[in-house]
């Protein structure tokens, strides 16, 4: 499949956005204002929309429209394929959507403690994986994409 140019700075800004949003939701809801948890379903929507319509990818657009023109973040174009990165982003969006359902599941108070904790844990894991990608360049979603392609489950 043909390679194209992917600006890796846009990916890094996206990962930073994911980490910051989850941390604000987590720490903010813990220490200050519980409704901040609504940031998690919003983030899920942003990631899923951005996967299928790149022009709606909030953090990438922030990079392309603001951070890059102002010279705050320098571009880093790399010969690459965007599909694995989109796949990873979509996977993050799916897990955050599951997390949101668990957090806001209308159940009795005792069960809600369990489901909300599980939902938050999933959101934290998504943020942890985004951090690993940002800091060490290891993209778990890309590896899953590679493994699925190797098994012929997707056209990688």
């Amino acid at each position, binding site marked *: 499949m043909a390679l194209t140019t*992917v600006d*890796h700075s846009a990916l890094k800004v996206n990962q930073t956005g994911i980490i910051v949003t989850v941390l604000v939701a987590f720490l903010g809801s*813990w220490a200050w204002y519980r409704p901040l948890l609504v940031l998690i379903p919003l983030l899920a929507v942003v990631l899923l929309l951005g996967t299928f319509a790149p022009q709606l990818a909030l953090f990438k657009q922030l990079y392309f429209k603001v951070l890059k023109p102002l010279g705050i973040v320098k571009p880093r174009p790399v010969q690459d*394929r965007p*599909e694995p990165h989109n796949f990873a982003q979509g996977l993050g969006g799916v897990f955050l959507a599951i997390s949101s359902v668990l957090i806001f599941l209308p159940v009795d108070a005792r069960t809600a*403690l369990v489901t909300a*904790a599980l939902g938050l844990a999933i959101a934290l894991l998504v943020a942890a994986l985004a951090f690993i990608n940002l800091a060490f360049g290891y993209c778990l979603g890309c590896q899953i994409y590679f493994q699925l392609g*190797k098994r012929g489950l997707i056209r990688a």
Partner: protein
Amino acid sequence: MSIQVWALAVAGIALLAAAGVEAVRSARARRRAVGATSAPAADPYILYFTGDNCTVCRTHQEPALAKLGTVRVDKVDAIVERELADRFQVYTLPTTVVMSADGRALHVNYGYAPAQKLDRQLAQARNGTLTMERTATA
């Protein structure tokens, strides 16, 4: 305890479990790495597993391989050559395998392997002072 504390505990346990599973899988892959291929050569050479979607391959691994000079590098598309990739338990890209001149796999590097490391492994392969060493750096 608040839900946040429980969430932290669950996420921490999940991360530790994932790290443990990865360590076990990596160790098993190293044990099962095959010791021979059908490509004898005059000098030690490198099997380089890559793929179209591997960014680190292009940005890091290929420049590192280029630094090795005249060493033979057999590039293998891990998706197209699935059988060969499975034989070396390739679960991450890039993966590099240092082969002896008579076609034995001597070192398997899962993840990016710097030029210095490959150079050292090739030197060991030339001197015949090697042990079966495999490392996971992904």
